């Protein structure tokens, strides 16, 4: 197949899109929110949810200083991360940027989401481990270390499979893009 030979055929292809003006008006008027704006909305919502989560969680684990500090520090770190993500998304301007810039930024955003998932899993198990430690550290050596090994193994395998799944579906495409264009 020769791309140059295709040019004529391509330009002769008669595209007939018969979307009436009323439908276009409805598209724009009917809560016309683009996928990109929805993405931003979800990110802002997640940031807003962290505020009650900080107070409720800290109060809930108030009797354990260690848990309370770990939890509130994590939520604050999560909030900063979330704020940076929103700032990053807001800076992406379809109207000014070229395709290369937009693709690069969206790839970075996707990479941020994958890191977030991995960090989230590690955090969940670290938090569970900390709860176990506080609750069972005075129990037998076998129960404590058995629990520790089990949690570590479970964290590692879950992260491995999720990363592998994400890698083959998304990250490989991003790596390819970076190899070709950056």
């Amino acid at each position, binding site marked *: *197949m*020769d*791309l*140059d*030979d*295709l*040019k004529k*055929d*391509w*330009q002769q*292809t*008669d*595209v*007939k*899109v*018969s*979307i*009436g*003006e009323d*439908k*276009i*008006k*409805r*598209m*724009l*008027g*009917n*809560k*016309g*929110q*683009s*996928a*990109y704006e*929805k*993405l931003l909305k*979800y990110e802002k919502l997640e940031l807003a949810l962290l505020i009650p989560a900080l107070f409720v969680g800290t109060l809930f684990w108030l009797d354990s200083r260690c848990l309370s500090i770990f939890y509130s520090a994590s939520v604050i770190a999560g909030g900063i991360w979330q704020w940076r993500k929103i700032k990053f998304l807001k800076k*992406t301007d*379809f*109207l000014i*940027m*070229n*395709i*290369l*810039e*937009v*693709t690069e*930024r*969206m790839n970075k*955003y*996707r990479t941020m989401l994958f890191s977030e998932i991995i960090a989230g899993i590690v955090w969940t198990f670290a938090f569970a481990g900390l709860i176990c430690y506080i609750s069972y550290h005075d129990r037998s050596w076998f129960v404590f270390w058995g629990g520790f090994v089990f949690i570590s193994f479970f964290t590692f395998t879950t992260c491995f499979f999720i990363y592998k799944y994400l890698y083959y579906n998304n990250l490989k*495409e991003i790596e*390819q*893009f970076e190899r*070709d*264009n950056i």
Partner: protein
Amino acid sequence: MVQPDADKEFLDMVTSNEGIIFKVASFYANTENPISDLYQEIVLNLWKGFASFRGESKQSTWIYRIALNTCVSFYRRKKNDVFFVDITSDIVAPSDVSNNIKELYKLIDKLGKIERALVLLYLDEKTYKEISEITGLTVTNVATKLNRIKNKLKKMSNQ
């Protein structure tokens, strides 16, 4: 909400450039992101940028830039985020396309996002300078990449 005086101008622009919007959307559509969703997303983004368009570049170049930016960045956190207007029946693929074009559509999936944009702009007779403006690649890079893509497509169609 659409303002009465601006909407006529915008609707005229969309109607007269629906071919470009369709072609861009068709190059990036897949089962997860159907052409009708991409089409609407492009129209929405064009509308958002319409007020700031001052004619510094050609209208078609501006439309290409926004349409391609929309498609390369189209990402949904929720797969079931649906659009409000059903336009599936209004977008019908042209029936009289040549076998070569059909083959191109089969192969296009195997190309990267930037490569697809380059093919599309090349087929629509955009100059290397215009392609460079839209994509952000240098003119030399556009030429090199296009040559590479041409060879890649030839190889793929022979396989």
